[in-house]
């Protein structure tokens, strides 16, 4: 039952995010837009590259979707509504997100296209940096909750949300999240400018629809993760638990999606340099600070 | 119960065998490293199997698994460091060409 509710809320969320992204990209809020584009995609002929690596070509988008779903599985929308409350939930979420990378490599390598391949390997180069920037803030959050399970993490934020408790961690997590689901300021794998669609260049028809849907799910998963870790999940004064987490997820997703309009795309080397030389040290510092505060401040 | 242990260990042994074959038979250094990775994975499987079925209450076994993971990571890093150096100087990492140590 909870799985069904989670999937439904996921579908609704994906729809709303698609609408938001449409609005962010085209400037006009057209509620029906996602449905139309989805149908259009399904209707189109699905082309195949000349000598593709068929296995990867097919599995890429599906693996991306699976990764997104696995990640969502661990996010608690309300005290009861969580697919599997693993003892190592936070780590599991991260493990799932790691497979976004594998999926993108497959999607990039599969169609035997230059732009796709470059997009895939470029994402690999960055992912090593994101992984650090995702895992370390999570460690800090787990440090405070003294347990890896996402439900305990949310419960630990009842007194003070983690965004106030460890803002640095939040900032790093958000930056890494933006990179992980390659939203505009960091959309290097599918950079429309220089890679002409990158990963999505070779895909058409159903596979492209699956790829886009999978991307939406990943965005939602990351938004959900940010909410659980930093914005106190379902905690909130008046509304019931699930409403709060729904609203929060949507807000965070909306912010993530619309951030692309403000900031120009970050260059590959620049981003790498920033995350390795600046991000990781800051993340380590964040863990240290949270460790000290956790020892000293009783809340 | 004993059967699961046997299955896990046989899986480990099988991976060890393939890894060994791969490490010895491949001409390319990278493939050899992958062979070694497989052997180490086999070791991991055996370790967890021993932990799960023989000494579940003993955390040291799990700690040792982490050590083996670290070994895998280190082995890969250094392996590829040398591979890059060799590739840069010799142009290829084919083991056939590495005759410098000839006695």
């Amino acid at each position: 039952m909870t799985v069904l509710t989670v999937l439904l809320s996921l579908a609704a969320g994906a729809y709303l995010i698609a609408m938001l992204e449409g609005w962010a990209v085209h400037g006009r809020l057209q509620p029906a837009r996602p449905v139309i584009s989805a149908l259009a995609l399904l209707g189109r002929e699905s082309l195949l590259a000349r000598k593709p690596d068929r296995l990867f070509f097919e599995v890429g988008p599906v693996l991306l979707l699976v990764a997104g779903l696995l990640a969502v599985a661990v996010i608690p929308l309300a005290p009861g509504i969580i697919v599997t409350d693993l003892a190592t939930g936070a780590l599991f979420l991260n493990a799932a997100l790691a497979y976004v990378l594998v999926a993108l490599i497959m999607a990039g390598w599969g169609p035997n296209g230059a732009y796709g391949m470059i997009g895939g390997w470029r994402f690999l180069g960055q992912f090593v940096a994101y992984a650090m920037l995702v895992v370390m803030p999570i460690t800090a959050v787990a440090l405070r909750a003294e347990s890896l399970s996402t439900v305990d993490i949310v419960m630990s934020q009842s007194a003070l949300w983690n965004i106030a408790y460890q803002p640095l961690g939040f900032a790093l997590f958000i930056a890494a999240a933006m990179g992980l689901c390659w939203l505009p300021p960091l959309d290097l794998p599918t950079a429309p400018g220089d890679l002409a669609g990158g990963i999505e260049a070779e895909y058409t028809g159903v596979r492209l629809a699956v790829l886009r849907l999978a991307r939406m799910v990943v965005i939602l998963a990351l938004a959900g993760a940010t909410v659980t870790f930093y914005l106190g999940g379902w905690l909130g004064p008046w509304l019931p638990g699930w409403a709060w987490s729904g609203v929060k997820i949507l807000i965070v997703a909306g912010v993530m999606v619309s951030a692309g309009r403000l900031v120009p795309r970050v260059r590959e080397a620049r981003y790498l340099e920033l995350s390795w030389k600046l991000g990781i040290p800051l993340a380590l510092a964040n863990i240290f600070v949270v460790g000290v505060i956790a020892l000293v401040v009783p809340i | 119960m004993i059967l699961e242990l046997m299955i896990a260990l046989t899986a480990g042994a099988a991976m060890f065998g393939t890894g060994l074959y791969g490490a010895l038979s491949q001409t390319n250094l990278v493939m050899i490293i992958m062979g070694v990775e497989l052997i180490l994975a086999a070791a991991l499987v055996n370790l967890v199997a021993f932990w799960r079925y023989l000494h579940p209450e003993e955390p040291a076994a799990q700690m040792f698994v982490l050590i083996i993971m670290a070994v895998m990571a280190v082995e890969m890093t250094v392996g590829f460091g040398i591979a890059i150096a060799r590739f840069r100087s010799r142009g290829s990492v084919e083991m056939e060409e590495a005759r410098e140590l000839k006695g």
Partner: protein
Amino acid sequence: MNFLALTLLAPLLSGLTILALRRAPEALALAGAVLGLIGAVGLFIAASDGTVQAVLPGLPDMPLRLVATPLTAVLALVVATVAGFVLTYATGYMAGDPEKARFFGTMLLFVTAMQGLVLAGDWIMLLAAWEMIGFASYLLIGFWHGRAGVASAATRAFLYTRSADLGLYLGAFLLIGVAGTSEISGTLAITGAPALIAGLFLLVAAMGKSAQVPLQDWLQRAMAGPTPVSALLHSATLVAAGAILLIRTAPMLPGGALLAIGIVGGLTAVITGLIALAERDLKRLLAASTASQYGLMLVAIGAGVPIAALLHLIAHAAIKSSLFLGAGVFQHDREGTGLDTLAGAGRARPGIFAGFAIAALALAGIPPLAAFFSKDAIIAAALASTAAPWLLPLALAGSVLTGTYMGRALKVLWTGEAGPARTPVPFMAIGMSVLVALAAGLGFSFGALEHVLGAEIEKPGWIVPVIGLAVGIGGLALGWFFAPARLLGPLLAPAQNGFTVAGGMDGLILRPSLSIAAACEAFEQRLLAAQIGLIRNLGLGAARLVDRGDGQLFKFSIWIGQQSLRLGRGTRSMDTNRIDVAIFGLVRRITAASTRARRLQSGLIHRELALTVIGIGLIVIVLLTAPHYF
């Protein structure tokens, strides 16, 4: 304390910068001199109410001391003033000279050394400064080393003063040894025999430096240096060193030493006075007159009143330097300082001649001017001293002679037709006029000076000034109206060549030492020849001996060669057919084994990897089976 440093360091630094930069030497020199003067004035004011002392780290328990008692401060002031104005004069005088930088640099170094000597508080500092001024005078005298005779004059001056300095060394070391401390004031308390001996040694040093009788020859020859040098060194400072030394050690000197000093001083005064009278060159005349004036000072010291000597020293410094500067101007006009060439030069330059005349009259002892007071003090001291019968006539004769040669100099300069007046000489004029003013006006300051030095001279009655005046005017009149030949008569010839007794210094010392050196040279040559001969026949005998032994040796080695040949043949045969066979066989087998082993070392990574795996397998087998069997 900083005035002390300023007096010493200002000239030193400017000298060094001039030598280093070799640019704008006049400006730097004047700056250094003026600063030194200011320092000296400040020092004098500071010292007038209490001695200023500076202790510098020197030898382990003998630190170098600079002490500015009123006495030394006055001397420092004199040196600084004379140096300042001589340097201003020198800027004009050396205008055309290409090596001005070297000149001014050495002059300033000399001034520093002189200030060091004057202010020295301990014997070692005094010794060092003494040597420095000797060296600086050598450099300055030999400044135009290109010209003929200048270099020899400089070396001669140097040798004279150096040999005399031995006296200073012996005296100083004796004093330090006996007193135990190197501080001059400390050593003054010594009495008895050591004091007498030290006193005599110091007298010898003073005679050398102040060109007293036996050693006066170098001063005339030192005139070969440029006139500012003679003005500064050979009138006020360097030559004064001897007198200063005796003045400062006067309290320690016992009666005998004082008598000796007095007699030496008197004799010098008379003899150099005669030489000055007989001189044919204006600068040599002034040099001889310097020696005679210092003779008078020694007479004053001998008479037991060092203060009179000090006053006369100060007056003489101003007078003689202005005389020299005047002579320098005339030298510029007439390109030479011979009296016959300078005849009438004074008439061509009335201003300069007026200054020259004032200074000359001052020296002769005409009342309002400076030397009158100091000369009176000397005559009074000679009169009042115990050894009056010895000292008084010599002092009087000395002052008469001073008057005569000054009168003769004036007469020569004034009579004779005036040559063309050359270009104006501003700097020279300024330098000279100030010194002349000093020469004139110093006398009045002597009273205040005595009060500062704390040693009042009891004013003699009316007798001494009258005698002094008579002597002065008499001398001048004699000089002006009677030619020297008539005055000296028989003494003219010897006086002209400096009363050289038995060939003079050259004869007495130079030639004998050279001949001794030649004799030693000859002896040494013969010695060398003898040695070579000895070695030669020794070597030949040994060689014959060795030759015979070598013959036998040769025969013996031939024999041994044959034996070894036979032995060699035997071993070769044994070796070839038995041992080689065995070795080569072994070698073949080893190479065969190694080629097989080499295949093992194929260098192929994967082959080696396989070998390692096989190795591990063997190890595992051994590990598993071993526990069962052993």
